[in-house]
């Protein structure tokens, strides 16, 4: 039997690859935004033009290019989801690993904290915090991360509980592997699937949350994000007007959807490829 590497097997799985391509496209859009189009600001005269060769996604009520907005919005969305994922991962993964592996007071304490955080009503809290700390895009990202870690910690903890009972963990202890290595190598490798999938979910929901907050006017009004575009479309009545300037909201919404789907596909692709048993 041939032993496939992680990469080979990942490429073999079409859906994961598709997700990766989608993610790469969005990431390069975001990273290369300044090269692709000028930062949309001010106003133009060509208002509410449908998609054309000049304006791929049409223009909005102020005559600004919607394609440029989506591209610059991708930049913001990536930044937000990246920061949120980092915050959630840095807190959630160690918390889940420790509470799942260490029985006794420390484990129960962390578990209790996870439970308390899970019962918090996320959206209202996000709105309140975002209103209090001010609407900078970094603040929004950190808040999203702070409210996303408990679900990540819970997934990590549950998987850890299952894995830490297995004999190879005891065997690792027996041959003198340090607890840190057991947690962050032996256990984490075996729960990488659910954790990575959950991370991509956090990545995806972070964009949704950011869009939601911006849509409610709690985002950063000085930056373009997908939520801001939708808010402006909504405020201008573009969603319900007839005749409808559908391009104003359609492309942005599609991008949010594609972003979420691609990250989910990527997550499950990684999950399949990480498991040596499903590699072949």
């Amino acid at each position, binding site marked *: *039997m041939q*032993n496939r590497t992680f990469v080979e097997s990942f490429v073999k799985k079409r859906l994961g690859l598709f997700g990766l391509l989608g993610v790469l496209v969005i990431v390069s859009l975001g990273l290369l935004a300044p090269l692709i189009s000028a930062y949309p600001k001010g106003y133009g005269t060509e208002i509410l033009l449908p998609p054309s060769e000049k304006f791929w996604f049409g223009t909005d009520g102020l005559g600004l290019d919607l394609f440029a907005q989506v591209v610059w919005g991708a930049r913001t969305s990536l930044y937000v989801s990246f920061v949120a994922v980092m915050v959630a991962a840095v807190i959630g993964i160690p918390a889940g690993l420790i509470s799942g592996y260490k029985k006794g007071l420390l484990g129960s304490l962390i578990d209790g904290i996870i439970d308390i955080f899970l019962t918090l009503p996320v959206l209202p809290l996000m709105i309140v915090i975002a209103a209090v700390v001010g609407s900078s895009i970094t603040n929004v990202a950190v808040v999203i991360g702070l409210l996303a870690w408990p679900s990540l910690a819970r997934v990590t903890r549950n998987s850890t509980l299952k894995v830490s009972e*297995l*004999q*190879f963990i*005891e*065997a*690792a*202890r*027996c*041959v*003198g*592997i*340090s607890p840190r*290595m057991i947690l962050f190598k*032996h256990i984490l*490798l*075996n729960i*990488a699937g659910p954790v990575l999938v959950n991370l991509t979910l956090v990545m995806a929901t972070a964009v949704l949350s950011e869009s939601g907050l911006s849509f409610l006017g709690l985002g950063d009004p000085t930056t373009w994000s997908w939520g801001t575009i939708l808010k402006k479309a909504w405020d201008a009545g573009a969603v319900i007007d007839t005749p409808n300037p559908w391009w104003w909201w359609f492309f942005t919404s599609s991008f949010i959807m594609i972003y979420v789907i691609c990250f989910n596909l990527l997550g499950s692709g990684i999950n399949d490829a*990480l498991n*040596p*048993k499903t590699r072949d």
Partner: protein
Amino acid sequence: MPMAEKILEVKGLTKYFDVQGGFLKKKGQVRAVENICFDLYNSETLGIVGESGSGKSTLGRALLKLLKSTSGEVVYKGKNILDLSDTNLSLIRRELQMVFQDPYASLNPRIKVGNTIAEPILANKMVSTSGQAREKTLKLLELVGLRPEMYERFPHEFSGGQRQRISIARALALEPKVLVCDEAVSALDVSVQAQILNLFNQLKNQLDLTYIFISHDLAVTKYISNRIMVMYLGEVMELAPTEKLFSKTFHPYTEALISAIPEPSTKGKRKRIILEGDIPSPIDPPSGCKFRTRCFKTMKKCKNVHPEMVEVESNHFVRCHLYDARKEA
């Protein structure tokens, strides 16, 4: 067998597990291992046999401090290793090792087997570079009868017997003096069992190892052990050199176990001693002698008085009231 020097001294080793009581229920204790005393001699193989639930695996884990013991001492090189703090464990981690029961669960499925073996070598700083660790690992693979190219493979690509060889290689990586084999062949096919048992014997001669061989299979234990310790419900019932245990069995429980070994024979059927029922719950063990509820030679005394270990002949210890008289004589 000439008795060599003691390598390990176990004194009164006891392990109780607390049982969480439910709502309005009182807490209980599982008396998994109670007051175990024995000496392990250099380069011998001590077999530990007993039914499921007799506490033999718990004993093995308590010896290596994989479980925290309730009380007792395990003296190795003049030190009670149960007193060692976690940071000072490196001594026993290196010199006392374990081979686990289930070859399918005892290897990390996400780590290449070569790295599984090399990791403890590096973690315990036995060599300084990963290149040296790799070299040592390749030698170990050869020692246990595996090919060097298997270094790069994952556990799921191996059969049960091969995996057990990998587990053995991992345990040997730290150059241990004592190897505790916890049901190390029980999960394998009979033909593979024989291969692994022969590997154990070969390694013992090559590396001067001392084994504690835990098994529920008396036939296997007989084949590999110099001495056998019979356990029942967390206590030692009989401890004797292998030939003595089989030629001159004292304890009724051992008698029953030996009579249950299947033997191909053209002679008429041997009388089997069938023990009724299951091993009692270690949460609420019988009073007096723990074996009395299933013993076919039970007496009045057994119910009230807990029998002590008696040396009925030299090096042959029995815990049974039938032989109390010999002690006094």
